[in-house]
């Protein structure tokens, strides 16, 4: 059994001469909840993009479940059991809530072209729908299953993206600002769901600016500023760290 589910070694990513990610190393143990915090422009989302394969690092390497995923494309990395949400809340607005979750389901029957034409996918679709509905129930969106995703409120859309990650069956969830812009009642819901994930065998790494949420949820905090990790540890320690106070908290 791995003691480490995700490891980044000395990642560097430069854009036009600016080091957005400047020698970041990170280790995440399974079933932890880890927060990455820091001011805007610290390189947090860039780090997520590097890990999930949407960007390739200029230097350094990334290991997921012991495998080197540094140069893999995003879909291959996802297939290894990694799901993410996006800072700009990506979703398929023109599909229904249920269809979005079904889309996230891995390799259903009928997804290949020959399966679609020749296989009896209708039956398996019914089972997939049941599973999708269970995840929608988990996040409290079951009654909106047949609405277009674009018609949901912002907070509900965030819940939907969480449901998609769970329906995908990911072992590691990278959530980019899961509660930003969301009403307090929905924040409570999201915190509650995220808190349950380690018991379900999942590991969560999330970027957040809402420090109340960070305090409530995390086992470990990583603080980034100007592309570097300036501090990491438990919340009580990090929140008192002078470097962190100067860069971000004060």
């Amino acid at each position, binding site marked *: 059994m791995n003691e480490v589910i995700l490891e980044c070694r000395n990642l560097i990513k430069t854009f036009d001469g600016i080091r957005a990610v400047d020698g970041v190393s990170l280790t995440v143990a399974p079933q932890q909840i880890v927060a990455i915090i820091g001011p805007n422009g610290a390189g947090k989302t860039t780090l997520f993009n590097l890990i999930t394969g949407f960007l390739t690092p200029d230097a350094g390497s990334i290991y997921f479940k012991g495998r080197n995923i540094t140069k893999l*494309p995003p879909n291959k990395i996802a297939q290894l059991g990694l799901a993410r949400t996006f800072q700009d809340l990506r979703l398929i607005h023109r599909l229904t809530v249920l269809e979005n979750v079904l889309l996230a389901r891995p390799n*259903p029957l009928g997804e290949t072209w020959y399966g679609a034409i020749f296989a009896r996918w209708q039956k398996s679709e019914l089972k997939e729908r049941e599973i999708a509905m269970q995840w929608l129930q988990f996040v409290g969106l079951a009654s909106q299953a047949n609405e277009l995703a674009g018609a949901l409120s912002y907070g509900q859309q965030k819940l939907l993206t969480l449901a998609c990650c769970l329906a995908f069956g990911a072992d590691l969830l990278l959530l980019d600002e899961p509660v930003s812009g969301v009403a307090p009642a929905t924040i409570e819901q999201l915190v509650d769901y995220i808190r349950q994930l380690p018991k379900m065998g999942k590991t969560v790494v999330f970027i957040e600016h809402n420090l109340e949420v960070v305090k409530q949820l995390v086992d470990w905090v990583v603080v980034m500023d100007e592309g570097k990790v300036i501090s990491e540890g438990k919340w009580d320690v990090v929140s008192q760290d002078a470097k962190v106070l100067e860069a971000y908290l004060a």
Partner: protein
Amino acid sequence: MEYLLHIFILIGIYIIAAASLNLVAGYAGLLSVAHAAFYGVGAYVVALMGLKLGVSFWVSLPCAMLAAALLGAVVAMPSLRLHDDYFVLATFGLQVIATSVMNNLVEFTGGPLGLPGIPQPTLFGITLSAHWQMLLLVWMLAALSFWVLCRLVRAPFGRVLRAIREDEVFTQSFGKSVTGFKVKAFVISAALAAVAGSLHAVYITFIDPTSFTVQESIFMLAIVIVGGAGNLWGSVIGAVVLVALPELLRFVGLPSAIAANVRQILYGSLLVVMMLWRPQGLLGEYRFD
């Protein structure tokens, strides 16, 4: 009566062409103006195999589909690295090259003079030369093609295509190979376009490059757009409207000198009106913004 049958045959052929284009343009959101190139490949393969090799339609048809599929695969891979306008331009390039090849490979394709006398299909010894026989053949193949496309779009495969149309990044983040899906949709669409082209060849029994130009691709795209991108039944309605409407003008009593031009004006105006009033087409779910 023969005239009516002729219209229905044409509608059937265009339903196959438009519905298959709808798969890539309407469902996957890949605006291709190269559809007539695959349509033409189908026509030329069937014509040449029939004329030069004496091969039966029932053998040359799958060959035509395979040829178009291979061309589709070869073209798809580089083109699909491009997005939006650049992709459209790449397909435009392909289409122009295709027409040029048809015009210039004279020993092979007959060049601008075309290929006359294409043998008609035979079934149990009977040659399908009468209009009603051709109608049955066309509509059976149309029904079969439509069924295949329906299966594809209703299955998870179709859902992934629609997701790709809306947000490729989101789709990739859940493990789907976006390029893989696009290539497959493109190849299947090309193979079905070849079915339509093959039928064209054995119905008219004469083909020449002027039937397989960019204008023809745009006409097929117009059917998809007017009928509704992202809805297969839309391609049926679109084909009926765009094939039948200009024909109806014949009965309006226009002097034949201007009739052809008036049809063009009408068809162009119809497109403009649709884009202004209802860009998603009559039945569609997607608008090319």
